[in-house]
């Protein structure tokens, strides 16, 4: 692992999301609630989503985990709010590409500040951490569709 990958992953922006996310908390009337765990490390989040007219109107997460999982969940929330499920799918797929080492995705402006997490591609054991929030959102869509 390169020193630069570590420095980029634990940069200020990510630590800010880890320590004080404005999306941390719970919703009064969520449409879908998804607990998501990473059994390997015991990290867990509880994702709550409120949907109106096909768009994610509000989103919150709570739980515990490493800086990567918690910051990634916070950034995911920031990007998902206000978007349709189709828009969420597009960005989620792009994020997944980046975390798995796709360098064009790591330069894609559509990912915004989530590109700060591109160094996770060099930390293979941490990929699941970065995906935890997105995996939870995917489950939320399934739950919402089933109701």
């Amino acid at each position, binding site marked *: 692992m390169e020193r630069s990958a*570590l*420095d980029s*992953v*634990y940069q*200020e922006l990510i630590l800010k999301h880890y320590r004080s996310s404005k999306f941390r908390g719970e919703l009064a009337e969520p449409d879908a609630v998804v607990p998501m765990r990473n059994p*390997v*490390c*015991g990290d867990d989040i509880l994702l709550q989503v409120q949907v109106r007219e096909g768009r994610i109107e509000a989103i919150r997460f709570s739980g515990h*985990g490493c800086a990567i999982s918690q910051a990634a969940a916070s950034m995911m929330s920031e990007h998902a709010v206000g978007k349709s499920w189709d828009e969420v799918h597009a960005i989620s797929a792009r994020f997944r590409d980046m975390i798995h080492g796709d360098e064009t995705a790591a330069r894609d402006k559509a990912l915004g500040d989530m590109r700060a997490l591109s160094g996770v591609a060099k930390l293979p054991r941490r990929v699941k951490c970065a995906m935890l929030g997105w995996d939870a959102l995917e489950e939320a869509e399934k739950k919402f569709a089933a109701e």
Partner: protein
Amino acid sequence: MSILSTPDAPPATPLDVERIREDFPILRETTAQGKPIVYLDNAASTQKPRQVIDAISGHYERNNANVHRGIHELSNRATDAYDHARQRVAALLGITDTAELIWTRGTTEGLNLVAYAYGMNNLRPGDEILLSVLEHHSNLVPWQLVAQRTGARLRFLEIDDQGRLDLSMLDDLLTERTKIVSITHVSNALGTVNPIKHIAAKAKAAGALMVVDGAQSAPHLPVDVPSLGADFYAFSGHKMCGPTGMGGLWGRREVLEAMPPFHGGGDMIEWVELESSTYAPIPAKFEAGTPNVAGAVGLGAAADYLAGLGREAILTHERALVAYAVKQLSDIPDLTVLGPRDLSERSGVVSFTLADIHPHDLATILDSEGVAIRAGHHCTQPLMKCLGVGSTARASFYLYNTPAEVDTLVEALHKARGLFGY
């Protein structure tokens, strides 16, 4: 011990660690960036000395065949090597009746053997199994399965803020309903050394079967297994310089002889008819199928290696190293060392947290410096809940670790603080 009272300076040690390190080829490995590997994940698995590696490859090169079957030269050699290994491991653990030592794949299989062959057959609704909140999942989940199947109930010894068992609960928890007590000798997560003889004596007085999870004591303490006063003691080879997939279960002869088999198959029988069979005497009765012959040979070599260094010397070395590590880590701002403060109650494990840095982030940062630690719940999720933490970082030591490696760990932790803005 003078070594313990002066932990400021790197400790003296009764082991010639530099020479010992030459026995372990893997300790010469480096990271992709050329940093030496500092292996501090010994509670998860230990490295193997050349003597063990050579014993295993030598077995396959010269003596390999199935055991207890063939009437031919190689089968005779393999059988002799297999039986000899059992004597070596028994000798290391103070087991004089070699037939009481059953080979298993490891501690997990040993505990499951007792849970299935004894627990499933002997427990009734209303019976109780006494465990502790310190237990590894392997000494918890098998008993949950027994409880679900038999209607028995699980009870738990709790711990104080240093991760020591609350022994004052024993008298209340041990009743005529208690049929099994199963407790770890040493906590894998905190290093707590439990007063197992005391617990075993109480369990026996209450008429309960006493089971000991020895996964973290067999490698580190000079254990004389039969004198613990228990009925069963399970351990793993790979945590004591032996190969993976190889371990043992000691059981008291009377209990083993009264117990039905666990697995059925070849080697465990005396005579087989279509509808029924009679079983071989112990230990074969509990060793169905072709065993892990090379694994036994490797574990036998590991037992010889440990005996050669001296069990007391290994313990003294680890105690000195742990004292040094606890002292050096405690000097790092915002770092909290968990577990017993009296180091005579602690084995070679130092579990800690550092400010708001999640243990997984710590492990990643330490890894970039070549330092291998374990981060997470250490297969003890209920314990983490008791301690009020989601997970911890854990450095665990063995006979080949050095004070200089503790220094490397400390430097890497300072780097982690820096990255997190401390």
